[in-house]
């Protein structure tokens, strides 16, 4: 598996779930725009679900993706 998408997923996830400082690569800097979602705890799932989905499919998982 290409480590790059997984790293991005992890960084994005950490930015919203763990509220950690995130140093995205230059190409991915625009993702910081979504950091404000952490101010809306009920919406973090909405923002992270697509990342869970891509991560899940890259891993070839058979079960549907969830945010849990």
């Amino acid at each position, binding site marked *: 598996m290409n480590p790059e998408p997984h790293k991005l997923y992890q960084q994005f996830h950490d930015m919203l779930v763990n509220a950690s400082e995130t140093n995205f690569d230059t190409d991915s800097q625009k993702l910081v725009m979504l950091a404000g979602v952490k101010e*809306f705890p*009920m*919406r973090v799932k*909405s923002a992270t679900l697509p990342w869970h989905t891509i991560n899940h499919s890259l891993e070839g998982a058979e079960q549907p993706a969830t945010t849990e």
Partner: protein
Amino acid sequence: MSSRADTFNTSETSAIEQIRADFPVLKQTVHGKPLVYLDNAATTQKPQQVIDAVKNYYTHDNANVHRGLHTLSERATDQYEQARNKVRDYINAASSNEIIFTRGTTESINLVAQSFGRSRLKPGDEIIISTMEHHSNIVPWQLTCEQTGATLKVIPISDAGELDLDAYKKLLSKNTRLVALVHASNALGTVNPVTDIIELAHAQDVPVLLDGAQAIAHMPVDVQALDCDFYAFSAHKAFGPTGIGVLYGKEKLLDAMPPYQGGGEMIRTVSFERSEYGQLPNKFEAGTPHIAGAIGLGAAIDYISALDFSAIHQHESSVLEYAHQRAADYPGLKIIGQAKNKISVLSFVLDYAHPHDIGTIVDHEGVAIRVGHHCAMPLMDRLCVPATARASFSIYNTHADVDALFTGLDSVRSLFG
């Protein structure tokens, strides 16, 4: 408690102010704005009278019911059974034996699905529900069908959100064993023509269960006039506590049904060889019940009974009509659910914002609405929407609350529109 029957009529504004004063939770700000609570179809707020009833019970009378000989137990039992009598009178049941306390509408329906359904259904039998059911009136029947080999039949609806009665007549057959239908839809507001539905079913000796979760707070319910066989509702959608609800069932049917759960309270004698079950209603109330909840429900019934349903209806209709007016010419807004006969529910979508975004943004204006699929995913599929935003009104809501919702929607539009 003094009667509020005339308060709506004397001066609507002051009457609503009086009612609002009974609900302490409304006196707060959310994100710096006065709370505008428009999520009443999910749960209504509680008047001080209900809060006090629960508090007084725990403060002065707490004991287990139907077992102790001591004074507190007697008081608790009296209050618990009085609550049952209040429910009986409120829905005009013929007997207190027909009032079973449950955890809520969902458990009431599960009780019928498991006890009535499992003991009677066999392969080839059919249960009729409709497209607009809440999951709680779908899944219990699916479970029963899996267990018995019976089949679920679904009455379709129109684009406006009304039942297709011709299709219903065709679905009713010699194989139909039960019709389970929502009285008023949580997601659309549609009030179904239940009298006609019941008459048609009874003409073929088919019993009818009504899911009254939404209807109970918005209209008088007379189970004998309706002639429904089962009626399920929750206290918390009618100003009572959560975790307590009611299953009404005709005594003849309940008598013939096997117990739903076993345990204390529901037996007459127990030995390791066999147990003898108690009489109605105890047969269906295994274990220590939610005593404080039942007492709170009794207080909620006292509260609502002191109001006048025609005045409630008039007030809620006026708020709904105003909301519909505001919605009609609002840019990009589509009302979901345009039945002629509706309870005060405005479900809608905006063509430029997802309902979840609508919900988050109006919350920051102090306005609480529900967004999502409203536990009615088959209905969302039928209407080709992933979700809706829903404002649902109660007796304490005003035209100003509707204005606050649309001010919130202006913020949505300025961001997304």
